[in-house]
């Protein structure tokens, strides 16, 4: 074996040493001394999760296409190795060259969920480059963040030198060119950051002054220099057909969570569900061309040897050429003995036909995501799925031999009443009732309906960004109410109900709409030993409560408080295309239980039209 950063003794004492040795199939090999820029790309969670992420594969491909850049990978060391690295002062290293991260030019961290924030601090700590951006030396890597959580980067702003807001395909070349120039001329870190702030989509948190009023509300966020923009514009890759996509994705030795080829059909979503951040920040909907998808599917299968392929997007049923693409894949995969893992599709004749071809009907289940139990509540959240459609789809499937149903709901949605909560089990019960109308000899035994509920977290850049969140007691009260109601229903023996962890949800809520004052809490809770908070086995609520108490942070200020309509939010400096005016309108409509049509039916003037492309333009042509 070539050089490894960890000794045989260490590798033999830790769990799953294959997480740390690199050398995977399709790994890019370059000579570090022959490139100008060394970029370490980090997913701050364990290897098996990080290796499953499509975004990193795209960026890995994009950076490594540049001859002057070598992009390598790094993931969070599991707690067993974490302790050894801390004790022996072993610096965090990248998988490809096994070199220390502190020797790199950039450390890029993708931030996919709030509960990885302590893992970000762990990465910075183990890399030995300074946890706080302000304490980083001239030769430390530039730490840059990206991903959905950067739509409110403020709670973690002080740990980063830069953030890239939006899709990576558009501005990274410009940023890397600028860096190369800066490195050649030997200008200071501060100069580079200031220059970088001129690039559209780049946010340099250290260049802003922030003030709060006497109630702790954000009062102002002002650039320190005239040339630093006060608004940072989200980046969107409009042409997804001719943009970079991996042809040779990495294939891990250790089984990743998603061990398959992933085909991204499109970005964005036309549906406009009011709770959904992805549905807002990735607007407008842009599709990839079907010819490109077919070609990439075959190429990637050939180059990886994967035995499974899956389709990815926010709402795959809305992809224009889904039928043609799916039947093409079914045929090709049959020839090559490859499995197709279907995304959740709207249940209709087409999806049932596809499902019956690729899965065993007796083992598979139908999935519906009504998100709310009552029609009133579904109107509030603008989820355009009616009970009629659900029952119709389910009945069609029941006649086809299916007898398992999964239903996804949220509890704690804005304007929710106890009646809405009880409507969750009642909906499940009515689906069961419908099943039993089928004559005994024509149905397939007893129906199994599994309803599960997550607790709602209001997110920035959604119409519910003003809404109060429930506290843990209220969440649990509602969960018990739903469960108790279910036990009293006619078909209760065919139904089951599960719900998520309320404590994690509360912290997600705190961080999602937090401001810069929370960075101290994050630092302190990490000091208390919190890492891998997204993992039930490591999550320690008590540590968080202690840190919040010591730092005198009122969690309710961030979670249960209803925001005034004219409140200045920490994330308002980002221009996500979708306007605050539109979201305000949507929030008020939600209060009235009024629905808004999807982008295909009618434009609702959200603001994403500024990109002059995708669904915004196609729609115009059709009308």
């Amino acid at each position, binding site marked *: *074996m070539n050089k490894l950063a960890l000794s*045989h*003794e260490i*590798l*033999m*004492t830790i769990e*799953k*040493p*294959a997480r740390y*040795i690199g*050398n995977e*199939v*399709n790994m890019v090999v370059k000579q570090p001394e022959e490139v100008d820029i060394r970029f370490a790309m980090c997913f701050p969670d364990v290897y098996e999760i990080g290796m499953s992420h499509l975004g990193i594969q795209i960026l890995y491909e994009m950076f490594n296409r540049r001859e002057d850049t070598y992009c390598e990978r790094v993931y969070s060391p599991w707690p067993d190795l974490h302790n050894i690295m801390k004790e022996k002062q072993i610096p965090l290293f990248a998988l490809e060259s096994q070199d220390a991260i502190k020797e790199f030019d950039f450390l890029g961290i993708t931030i996919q969920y709030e509960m990885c924030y302590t893992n970000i601090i762990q990465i910075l700590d183990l890399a030995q480059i300074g946890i706080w951006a302000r304490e980083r030396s001239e030769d430390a890597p530039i730490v840059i963040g990206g991903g959905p959580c950067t739509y409110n980067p403020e709670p973690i702003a002080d740990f980063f030198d830069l953030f890239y807001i939006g899709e990576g395909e558009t501005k990274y070349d410009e940023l890397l060119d600028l860096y190369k120039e800066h490195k050649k001329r030997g200008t200071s870190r501060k100069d580079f950051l200031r220059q970088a702030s001129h690039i559209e989509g780049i946010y340099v948190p250290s260049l802003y002054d922030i003030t709060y009023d006497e109630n702790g509300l954000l009062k102002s966020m002002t650039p320190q220099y005239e040339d630093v923009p006060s608004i940072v514009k989200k980046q969107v890759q409009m042409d997804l057909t001719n943009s970079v996509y991996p042809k040779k994705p990495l*294939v891990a*030795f*250790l*089984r990743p969570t998603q*061990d398959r080829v992933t085909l991204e059909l499109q970005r964005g979503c036309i549906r406009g569900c009011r709770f959904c951040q992805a549905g807002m920040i990735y607007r407008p909907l842009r599709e990839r061309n079907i010819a490109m998808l077919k070609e990439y599917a075959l190429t990637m*299968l*050939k*180059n*990886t*040897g*994967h*035995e499974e392929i899956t389709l990815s997007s926010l709402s795959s049923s809305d992809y224009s050429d889904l039928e043609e693409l799916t039947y093409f894949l079914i045929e090709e995969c049959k020839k*090559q*003995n490859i*499995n197709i893992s279907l995304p959740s599709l709207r249940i209709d004749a087409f999806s049932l036909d596809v499902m019956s071809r*690729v*899965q*065993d009907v007796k083992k598979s289940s139908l999935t519906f995501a009504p998100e709310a139990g009552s029609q009133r509540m579904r109107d509030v959240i603008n989820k355009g799925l009616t009970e009629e459609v659900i029952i119709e789809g389910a009945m069609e499937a029941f006649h086809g031999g299916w007898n398992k149903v999964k239903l996804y709901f949220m509890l704690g949605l804005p304007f929710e009443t106890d009646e809405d909560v009880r409507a969750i089990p009642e909906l499940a019960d009515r689906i069961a009732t419908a099943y039993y109308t089928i004559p005994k000899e024509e149905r397939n035994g007893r129906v199994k309906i599994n309803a599960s509920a997550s607790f709602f977290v209001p997110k920035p850049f959604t119409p519910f960004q003003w809404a109060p969140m429930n506290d843990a007691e209220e969440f649990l009260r509602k969960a018990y109410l739903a469960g108790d109601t279910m036990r009293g229903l006619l078909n209760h023996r065919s139904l089951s109900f599960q719900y998520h962890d309320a404590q994690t949800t509360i912290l997600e809520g705190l961080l999602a709409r937090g401001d810069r004052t929370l960075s101290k809490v994050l630092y302190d809770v990490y000091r208390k030993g919190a890492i891998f908070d997204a993992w039930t086995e490591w999550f320690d609520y008590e540590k968080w409560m202690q840190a919040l108490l010591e730092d005198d942070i009122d969690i309710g200020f961030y979670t249960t408080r209803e925001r005034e309509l004219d409140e200045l939010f920490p994330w308002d400096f980002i221009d996500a295309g979708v306007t605050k005016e539109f979201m305000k309108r949507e929030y008020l409509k939600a209060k009235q239980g009024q629905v808004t049509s999807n982008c295909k039916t009618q434009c609702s003037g959200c603001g994403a039209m500024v990109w002059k492309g995708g669904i915004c333009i196609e729609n115009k042509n059709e009308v």
Partner: protein
Amino acid sequence: MYVGHLDTLRYFQKVFRRSGVDIAYSNGFSPHQILSFAAPLGIGVTSEGEYLDTEFHSVTTSQEMLGQINAATLTPYIEITELVALEEGAKKAMAAVAGADYRISFATKYQYREAILKAVPLFLEQTELIITKQTKKGEREVDLRPLIHQLEVQNDALTMRLTTGSNNNLRPDTVMESLAAFAGVEYESLSFMVHRLDTLLWNEEEGCFAPLSSAGHVIV
């Protein structure tokens, strides 16, 4: 060497797919290749003598197929060195395996190497070497001696031939532990590296061990 046995199987499934050889699949909704290792290798152990059983729908020649498969391993650390056809009804490698050869090398900082190497002749003179083995049903006494077919000092390393298989199986680290105890020194599992040289079958006719590949014939 740091990749577990099941992950190595998954790796080979993908190698075969990439290579385009005409491998056989099971029926059903999730067809899979029928692969099995003769004697799964533990984590931390290196090897130059592993055997894998599989079935093909059609074959060309050993040489051509080796070329195809090796072009698809995509790592410098794994190479298929031989490909032989087994007769219909032949024992699977896992059932045929009877022994394995190992080389044990020591970490330079391990202070008891000399003591261990010196103890080898006397260790081999023992007519029985009883150890207590922890099993699911409690403790059990096992005599190692008949399972050790050869044990030799070569330069600063040790080579050994041990009984391997599903009925009787002796791991090299068990021998090392027992040898350290016999020499009266402390056993440190991380102070030596195990390398498998070959995996063997028992040739009834000749009454000797032979490489597993001798069960089949090269396809020409």
